[in-house]
């Protein structure tokens, strides 16, 4: 079955079983490898991406639900490499990743969080991001989310001026 949607601003059509998890379509049909497979059960968050601005764990979202929608993955989070999304900039500033495998999922969750809660406290971050990291980057993730929120605020101030 043909399913059309936009991914990172680009229109695509894939011919696939409509129940195929969006994750596999993004990774294997569209070759965007930044969205990771971790558990297949929406438990770990490594496959997190945005569909029409909402956060989803794409391992458990059949591709048919993306039809005619806008999908954003880690590759499309920043406008370009010189103008990083506040979350990716903060991740750079705090030197967050270790193995790096879970980080795209965390960053997608963080990007959504700072939209919902523009000035998150530690507690807000702890309660709202339930992704799993094995390397133990947790302390840096909390720091980086707060930093990202600040960067986003200051960008907003700049663009308002």
């Amino acid at each position: 079955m043909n399913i059309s949607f936009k991914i990172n601003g680009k229109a695509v059509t894939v011919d696939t079983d409509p129940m195929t998890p969006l994750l596999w379509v993004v990774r294997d049909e569209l070759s965007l490898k930044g969205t990771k497979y971790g558990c297949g059960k929406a438990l770990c968050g490594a496959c997190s991406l945005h569909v029409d601005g909402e956060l989803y764990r794409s391992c458990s979202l059949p591709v048919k639900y993306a039809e005619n929608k806008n999908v954003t993955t880690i590759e499309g989070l920043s406008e370009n490499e010189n103008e990083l999304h506040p979350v990716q900039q903060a991740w750079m500033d705090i030197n967050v990743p270790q193995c790096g495998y879970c980080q795209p999922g965390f960053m997608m969750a963080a990007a959504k969080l700072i939209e919902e809660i523009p000035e998150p406290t530690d507690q807000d971050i702890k309660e709202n991001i339930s992704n799993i990291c094995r390397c133990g980057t947790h302390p840096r993730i909390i720091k980086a989310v707060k930093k990202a929120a600040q960067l986003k605020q200051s960008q907003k101030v700049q663009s308002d001026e």
Partner: protein
Amino acid sequence: MSKEETPEKKKKGFSRRKFLKNTGIVIGGGSLLLYFGRHKLRTFAAGFIADMDLPSGVSNFDPDFWFEIMEDNTILFKSPKVEMGQGIFTGFAMLAAEELEVAIEQIKVVPGSSVNSANDMAGTGGSGSTHSLYVSIREVAATMREMLRMAAADYWKVPLEDIRAENGMLLKGSESMSYADIVKNTEQWKTPKTPDLKLASSFKYVGTERKRIDLKPKVMGDAIFAIDTEIPDMLYAVVQYPEYIGGKLKSVDSSEAESTNGVIRVIREDNWVAVVAKNRYAAEMGKKALKLEWDVEKTWQQQDIDELVKVGNGRTVKLQDKGSASSVIKDDDIEVIHQEYRTSLGVHAQLEPNGVIADVKEDKAVIIMGTQAISFVKRAVSKAINMSSGKIEIRNSFLGGGFGRRYFKFNAPEAARISQILGKPVQVFRDRESEFTDGYFRPSSHHELKAVLNDDGTVKAISHTQATGDMGIKLAAGKMGMNIMGADFISAGHGAKFLYDFPNKKAYVEHIDMPIPTGIWRGVGMFPNGFAVETFIDELARKANTDPIEFRLKHLYSDDPIVKRMKNIIEILRDRSGWNTPAPEGVGRGFACGEDRKTVAAAAVEVQKIDGQIRVTKVTHIVDPGLVINPDGVRQQVEGCIMMGISASMYEGTYVKDGQMTATNYHQYPMASLMDTPEIEVIMVEGSAKPSGVGEPPIAPMAPAIGNAIFDLTGERQRKLPFQLT
């Protein structure tokens, strides 16, 4: 599609033609071969040797190479050790840049393959990469710099001393050319004797704060892991291994699997069944449709495992016997303080499931994967497809976490076999359930500790016996090796000894033949042994009515350099963590320390009950790993060990029920999340001019320090991992 380099069969020496062909040139050859040849006899099981100077295991049996100078004057560093998050690529680049006289940014570190880089027999592990290659990397880099200088001297026809190497440029007075330029203009290379290395006092990079060199790709989502890799015409396969402990494949009904949309073939081999399909979804659906029957000799239960893994049931190897502990500690003596401890089976739970590409042709096989042990994989693949190892190339990738998982159960033999049968490239990938139920496990353990105290509250005699499964001997030396060694005193018994200056002390490890495959897990034996020993020490301190830190300091007085370094960090930690200030109401404090591969570490932990749940709220951690190459790299490892220590001690365990493992995915294997993140302070001390390990040692004090803090808060002693919290 991920880009894959075409492997190039390398030749001795260098030629202009080769440069033109590859837009890069190989620097290597005679002198490097000679240097690494020295290690040849020291490679056996090197990754697991814990109590001696860790050899790197790196050797050049072929004229392999480390560095390539690219046309844009960047330098490709083909690392024999793999990056799995521990930050060694950054440290390696810093060390190489130091002697190459280039900016760190000029160096690009990539994982070497089994044919294009220095052979690594030991694998990446044992917290040994930086420590074991600290001198080698600089010597190879210095040798290469000298080769470039000599070539420049020949080119300009001036004496060598007129040539300076700076910032990737060769300078003669006011004239200059880049390293890439001289490579283009050189036909014949001369190799110098290994040059003298820079003194530590003139290091430019070592000791400075550096961000990871793999930071940007990991932030942008561009870092490619093994499971992300594709090659043209690749098929996908999943493998069903025995669903029961000790299960033997009895019958296969694959009709439904074979008729699943997208499934190409079902392959039955020996004791596994593979479903090959055109995409992952079809492969997974096909696997779900398999109807398999297994012969199971014994249906194991957790109780059977607990009864098996018990002191007295195994083959004993003595690790330590000083003084006359046996005659002081008599079992019928009421003076003897006696406690038992247990740890559960553990799972690595690294986030990237294993994925292996195999492309097996008539006379050549290429394996692309993420492994901590290229040489073991090569051996296993060679056996599986009956091909000489010289025709097999193993290419490594970034590892989405290692923690010991990627020393074992490679999937590579299965992938190679499937590719051989199909005559097509295939990726075998594991789903999470397979990772949880058919990986390798941290063996469970049982510990008996006994002690007699003097009237002044000091330790008169102490003994520790640990019963546990194998962690690495079987892998390195086979079953026969295990029989010769008796027990895995190298990995599993690691940390069972006492560092303290007790007059009478002895330690044993007992090997238990477990029915479940077991292997190394971050910290190897140090994790369970550190828990048992340091909890017992805390219990003794309480018995002796002595502050737990003072109790330990009382027993650290000898001139042994490790003892001195341990004493030093404990004193610093005591003062910096506020240990001697009264704890606020509702706060429990605990302390523990550990020595691991010449790195000493200690932690002071605070716990509180929050909304009815005990949480670690503050960790002050101190580590002395000797020379620190990249402080932020060390800090990351310490933070990682703190979080993994919290996770493993508070939550993690998998158990056996009706012949299967209870944890099949993350929901059945609770782990630390952001909710568990405490306030953290990391203190670093450099007690030696040489670096020692840092990936694992900082985990040593975590479990006991937390358990001791819980006792301080609740009065309930934690003698099992994970903790039994009500």
